[in-house]
């Protein structure tokens, strides 16, 4: 066991853990940020996506210790049910989620994308979303929500 120091959603935290534990387990079990989900533990599906220094990063394989000194953000850091971020609000209004298991990861990637570029190209959007799998078939609604955010059009 070892003490590791992480910065999650702006807070500095210390966790006593087996140093090879992947970040997702620390976030979900030790720090109660359960928004990111374990989907494959193979960096294939994107359900575990968090931001590391602003970059969408799978959290299911790499050890938490690798992220010391970096800014980690989870979906909980963007907003709350009563005060959602713009991305979360538009995603909710567009009713994009069905089961919702993949959603937090997608919200996370899309949030990072719009921070970098408020008007991303179609190719950039596809590239961003293609790191995520969805099984309910919410893709078209997610694309619609992203387009609405891109153009700033009001529903």
């Amino acid at each position, binding site marked *: 066991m070892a003490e590791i120091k992480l910065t999650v959603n702006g807070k500095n935290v210390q966790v006593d853990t087996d140093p090879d534990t992947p970040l997702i387990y620390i976030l979900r079990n030790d720090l109660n940020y359960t928004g990111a989900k374990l989907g494959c533990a193979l960096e294939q599906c994107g359900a575990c996506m968090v931001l590391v220094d602003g970059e969408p990063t799978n959290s299911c394989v790499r050890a938490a210790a690798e992220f010391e000194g970096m800014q980690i953000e989870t979906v909980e850091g963007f907003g709350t049910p009563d005060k959602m971020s713009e991305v979360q609000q538009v995603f*909710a209004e567009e009713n994009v989620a069905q089961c919702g298991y993949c959603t937090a990861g997608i919200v996370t990637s899309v949030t990072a994308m719009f921070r970098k570029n408020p008007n991303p190209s179609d190719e950039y959007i596809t590239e961003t979303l293609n790191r995520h799998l969805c099984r309910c078939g919410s*893709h078209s609604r997610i694309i619609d929500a992203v387009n609405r955010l891109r153009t700033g059009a009001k529903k």
Partner: protein
Amino acid sequence: MSNHPSLSNSPKVADWLDFSSENQLVLHTGKVDIGQRITTALALIAAEELGISFQQINVRKTKTDIDPNEGYTAGSFSMQHSGYAIKKATATARHIFTAKAAQRLNVPEDQIEISDGQLRASGTNQSVTYWELLDKTILDVDVDEEVKTKNPEDYSVQNQPHIAKGMAEIMTGKYQFLHDLKFSDMLHARVVRPPHYHCVLESLDNDVVLRLSQENIHVVQDGSFIAVAAQQEYQAVKAARRVSLAAKWKSEKQLSEADIYSLLTSNNKDRLFVEKGCIPSTTKQIPELEMLEDESHITISATYKKPYHMHASIGPSAGCANFNGKTLRVWTHNQGVYPLRAAVSEAFDMDVDKVSVEFVPGAGVYGHNGADDAAFDAAIIARHLPNHSILLKWTRDDEHSWEPYGSAMQCEIQASVDKKGKISSWSHETYADTFLTRPIIGKEPASRMVSSHYLEKSLPWPVVGPMMVANGGIHRNMEMLYEMPEPRLVKNRVYDLPLRTSALRTLGAFGNVFANESMIDELAEKADIDPIEFRLSHLKDERAIKVISELQQLMAESQNADVDETGYGMGFARYKNSAAYCAIGVCLSVNEAAEVKLHDAFIVCDAGEVVDAEGVRAQLEGGFIQAASWCLYEQVLYERDGIVSRDWDTYPIITFDNIPRMHTRLIENQGMPYLGAGEAAAGPTAAAISNAISQATGLRVRQMPFNSDAIMAAALED
């Protein structure tokens, strides 16, 4: 007593409605929210009927003994079962409360106006709330199915813009999934599975077990069932890997590598004639297949094939269980808490009232996936490790290789069209494994749990006979709505096939509608008739004519000029011939690498009265995308030594780079009975894609997946 399946079990208004919390209405339902947003629809029905705001209404997660037993949340029945029951229960309640309010306020009943939970005497400032009128027995009356429900012209809540129940929580990571449960006495668990179905444990290295126990990690072994449990989740993950290396398995039999479509036709089977109404007959002689050979008919024979498909949930299945020495509490994200309780109590020889099962949301299940099994695994471990809450999660590998798949299918159709362009004969013989190995109360439910076959007291694998109900499993949607001479429909329930199968969204309808609606296009093409006109000329059912005509219009409005060499295709079915009518169109192109690119999806649906239009659209569009994924990308790969498709690389599904623009239209039918729409899109989508590929390329693909290999193969045959 009611004939309605839900109201006959739970006849009282109080079985469905609970006003005991001030200013809140809690709905009880036996249907669970698996992403189809039934909680939102039920809350909207109640809000509309009772004049209570949507926000004031909460829908309970189903728990045994507390909520109605409505069987499985399956077959697109949630609206017809729970939606209907709650509509009638809320309308009954409104009449009771209105009468009481009239008495209290001393005005005639027709002077009572209701809004925001207030019952007001018209033209006065006198009012009373539901909660003020409540007494202990007021709702202890039977639901009146003849009750006058709200006039659809006065609807003000249903189909209005709203944010669905749980949506804000999902967006912000606050929605509680089963996978997120946390208890102070909790242990995280993983199962160590054998390499494939037919293995037994030969030995387990005791030194490893001992070393793990010194690290406070439990190893549970019960026959060939092995699991690990630890306080830290990653400890359990690593321990499972160590135990996996310490376990030696003996393979008693291997998986057959013979071509699955050969096995479907050559293996032992029950062969049944499917009569009008799609009910199999065990007595009726199957007529010989005859061919109309004279010159006045064009006859086509074709065989359509689909491989095994996975449910392939994004979240691996999970279950939680706690055994205190006397009672067993189970948390599950499956589709039926009552049947699961029957399975668990039978397996552990416990009284049913000593077992409770409650629903907590998980990832979408799309039928009978690993959810039941994972709950059962958690229960096995909990029985071995009492007084701990065992949170068991399957791995991606477990999910891909152990879930019960949707069966491979083969559909052989021979059909003729006469000189007038009318269908003059139709024979459809379909072959598949069972679509129903869910636990069923009273039918040895424990044996449906995969781990039951590996316990010390192991149960044999279930052998399930053919489903005999109308539009049941393999024969679902074999019959079509088109007018034609009595068709020859034959169902083959085939045994001794290599993979474990059960209910996958739409059961046999996906394969049957794909085959039927492909053949309709093949006939139309041979007869040189526009495929939409061909369909319309064979229909009398006005609702069917309406959805197809609307589709025709919708597609005409959106002709795609910006892509070269596109193909258009359509498919139509009324799901189960008793639920929603759905016509699907697609515009696609096939690129130089022989890959299908989807451009536009056109969806027209008549689902009867619609409560949550956004929810219905999401189900239809999601159904299209999931079916497109099945068609274009998916097949379970396996070999002698087990399943090969064990992750997302070896079992690819559709991704964001091949999602079409959606053009969705719902037929307005307020006041009509609800018709389930959750599974309506899948079968027609498959046919629409196959028909569009044919139009785009001139090549007919009859075997899924329609990937570049299949299209190249069709080109070589051509």
